[in-house]
């Protein structure tokens, strides 16, 4: 079992980062979806929002780690049977997913800064506020954060559909190699 990627498959580090990001997106999205129904000024609401923000910051950190890992390591080639249009679609989806892994948390961070509510990352580190409090911008940023998150989830759905197509229709090892680290 390798930590690093090779020409034959993904290493353990890439696989762990991928599934950790997937789990964090699911959790953060679930909280984001439900927390807006909570009473607006309540201690439990602040704790829930802060957890959502902590998860988002973690996704941002993992995205940065993944980017470094991705550009500095080899990566396996796509299955030879993939048509050029499919490769292009996969490439655009992956690049867009990557961009949104940065954009969604950053927009969230800006939203909470505009509302003058600092992020206390899991109660360990209080993050600096990238912008000064600005109520007029808050709603706009909140909408942008929501839209970007919806786009991210739509792309995740497309990404999952692609993986299922590889597994069930093409019968190749694209899904398997994201689960089992390469040995060579």
């Amino acid at each position, binding site marked *: 079992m390798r930590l690093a990627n090779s020409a034959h498959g993904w290493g353990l580090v890439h696989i762990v980062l991928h599934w950790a990001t997937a789990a964090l997106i699911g959790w953060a999205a679930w909280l984001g979806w439900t927390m807006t129904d909570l009473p607006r000024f309540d201690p439990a609401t602040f*704790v829930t929002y802060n957890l959502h923000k902590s998860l988002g910051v973690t996704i941002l950190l993992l995205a940065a780690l993944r980017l470094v890992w991705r550009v500095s390591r080899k990566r396996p080639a796509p299955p030879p049977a993939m048509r050029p249009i499919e490769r292009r679609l996969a490439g655009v989806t992956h690049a867009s997913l990557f961009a949104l892994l940065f954009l969604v948390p950053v927009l969230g961070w800006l939203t909470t800064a505009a509302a003058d509510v600092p992020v206390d990352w899991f*109660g360990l580190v209080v993050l600096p506020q990238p912008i000064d409090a600005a109520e007029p911008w808050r709603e706009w940023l909140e909408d942008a954060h929501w839209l970007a998150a919806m786009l991210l989830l739509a792309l995740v759905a497309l990404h999952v559909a692609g993986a299922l197509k590889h597994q069930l229709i093409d019968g190749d090892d694209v899904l398997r190699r994201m689960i089992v680290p390469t040995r060579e």
Partner: protein
Amino acid sequence: MRHLALIPLLLAFSASAAEWRVDHEASRITFTFTQMGAAVEGTFERFDAAITFDADAPEDASVTATIEVDSLATRNGERDEGMKSADWFDVANHPTATFVSKRFTPAGGDRYDVEGELTIRGRTRSIVLPMTISIDGDRARAAGEATLDRRDFGLGQGDWAGDTVIGFDVPVALTIEAERAP
């Protein structure tokens, strides 16, 4: 009998020598609290004070300040409304907070310990405000800071009682500028 007419004038003159009017543009009351471990600043935008002060006679000095709690502002409208609600300042039942001084004790130079009664949310506590008071002609500047414990005034009821989300200690800073009353 004609001389009697001078009495109010003389009284007014002797009193006005040490009375001051708050310059609202230049005066600020700010408080800082921690929300999820991070400092958040708020202000009270509307307040007034009746100030009598003469550095040569600090024993005669007095301040009665009234703060309109509804003017609370923390750069977040939702938070402002929350802070005005029954669990916090309960503005509906306690629209004003007051400070009434009891004693100005000189603490060297232009420093004074201002002892008085602070009433917030209907609860009164004795506090000591260390103040620096400097006078330049007809202009006076007073600045001071004190840290209050929000629990002393019943701020943060019910689920807010703990300090998980909002801390107990609240540093309050005053900067008051005033003009000598004519």
